[in-house]
């Protein structure tokens, strides 16, 4: 038996690296970097309200976020790549949210989970920030109240797509700022089309 890259596995076991037919893969460094960024996108634990419960459920046994290398919810924002704003952001919380975002290392991404974080949702009143995109740049908006674990995973996979394709990083170079990306979900498509609105 021969494997495409490694050659004969038995030879590898017996002889170590000497037994490998081709021990290198060619490709662009950029692609490798993007691939690894997408595949180890660690979220920060930033649970605010109802959505946080669904976010935890996504990390639980049934939905198993670990499949995407993402089960390590980091308590410290400095170790996290992705902020999932899970829930409604109050006027009192807003400055703290921004501070935590500033503490995260580049490259960093933000998913706005649920309608409250995306637009204020049903709480159109004095206490709630009408859309977290007024405070931090949002990369992906996940609809729902609260979004089920499937929707959150869909949002995460969409983000992975965008990281791998480099779309987000390119746009950051252009504007010098964070993302402002609206994801339109289309019928009958699992992957989503992306419209950049400036």
């Amino acid at each position, binding site marked *: 038996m021969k494997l495409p890259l490694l050659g004969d596995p038995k030879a590898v076991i017996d002889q170590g690296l000497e037994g490998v037919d081709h021990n290198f893969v060619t490709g662009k460094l950029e692609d490798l970097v993007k691939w690894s960024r997408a595949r180890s996108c660690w979220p920060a634990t930033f649970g605010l*309200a109802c959505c946080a419960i*669904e976010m*935890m459920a996504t990390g639980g046994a049934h939905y198993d976020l670990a499949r995407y290398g993402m089960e390590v919810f980091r308590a410290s924002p400095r170790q996290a790549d992705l902020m999932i704003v899970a829930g409604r952001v109050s006027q009192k919380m807003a400055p703290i949210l921004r501070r935590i975002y500033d503490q995260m290392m580049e490259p960093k991404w933000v998913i706005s989970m649920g309608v409250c974080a995306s637009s204020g949702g*049903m709480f159109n009143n004095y206490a709630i920030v009408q859309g977290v995109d007024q405070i931090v740049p949002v990369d992906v908006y996940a609809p729902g109240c609260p979004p089920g674990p499937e929707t959150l995973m869909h949002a995460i996979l969409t983000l992975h797509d965008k990281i791998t394709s480099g779309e987000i990083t390119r746009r950051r170079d252009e504007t010098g700022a964070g993302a402002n990306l609206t994801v339109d979900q289309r019928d009958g498509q699992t992957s989503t089309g992306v419209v950049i609105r400036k």
Partner: protein
Amino acid sequence: MNSIATDEAVRRRDDSAVLRIAEDDGERLEAEAGTSDTSMVMNMGPQHPSTHGVLRLMLEMEGETVMRSKPVIGYLHTGMEKTAETLTYLQGPTNVTRMDYASPLFSELAFSMATEALLGLEVPPRATWIRMLMCELNRISSHLLFQATNGMDIGAVSMMIYGWREREEALRLLETITGLRMNHNFIRPGGVAADLPDGWRDEVLTLIDALPARLNEFDTLLTGQPIYRERLQGVGVINTAECLALGVTGPILRSTGYAWDLRRDMPYLAYDQVDFDVVVGTYGDCFDRYAIRLNEIRESIRILAQILHQMPSGDYRVQDKKVTPPPRARIDESMEALIHHFKIFTEGFKVPAGEVYAAVESPRGELGCYMVSDGSAVPYRMHIRGPSFVNLQTLPHMMQGGMVADAVAIISSVDPIMGEVDR
């Protein structure tokens, strides 16, 4: 009744445990908090993995010992009570259900009971029993959430996986019945939103057959485990007099050995027709609170089994044209029914003027709804008495003199849901 609120000991402990300095008052903090060189004021939260959302604590520390502390809340203040004044009575449950998001059906129930009291409505028996069924299912899922997060907070991370596994089972059943995993908006003034779906009996039976064995697994994993007991026993002790003085209800009050449960002592719905025990603790520590919640799941399973046998047939909502929209099929054939349906959902129904307080026993304690109507279609004032909000006041008392690591176990054992605290 051995407890008088002004018990000297309670007051002394209160004064020495609570840090009553405004969080932005730096000068006073510097001058008063920290009586010696070794003490300092530390901030914990609001973004902290074990503060259950956005609770923030100011801790006055002496080395690693917590002296005084103060819970700082409001980071999830949503203005729900203000929003409630703009929503009709039919829209109200959508609003309150987002308060206590771990046990949303209880808020809906309190809201509906208050509205029905103002309307003078009698709910049909089947609706009452469906409400009980939903509440007990919700109590199970809420307590399972506690088991998961409690385990995670104090380092038994595998417990989180097990807790979620069981909770998914309960959520699947809730989804089958209400259509949503959370924030159901299922219990509404006048009854419930829909009748139980076909095959609900089998699904409930499957759940209550499977759960006891899983709970025994929890026992093996946690209850008898020396590390876990060491971490919780004797930590965060509080006594009955302190609990009553602070207005505490629910598992925290019961953990002190004081049996008070609204379901038994001031029955609502049909709780006087089912048989169950009120679980109490002995020492009032974190371990008792854990054990009470675990055993309350077992009691809920008992209640569910009885509900399965006693569920009456009949209407799932009142046949009162004033509050109940006409059945879907009638809308297709009758213009009057269509207009009626449209008016109920756009204008809402008018509720007689008055004020009322209705309370239920939620998994966290007494959840009350105070409602004032001025005779229009929206409440003039709607206030929810959240048990977590009042229960949070015990934190400084329980934490005083303990290690900062115990603080995490104590917060977890209070099981606060910040949505209900800040509203």
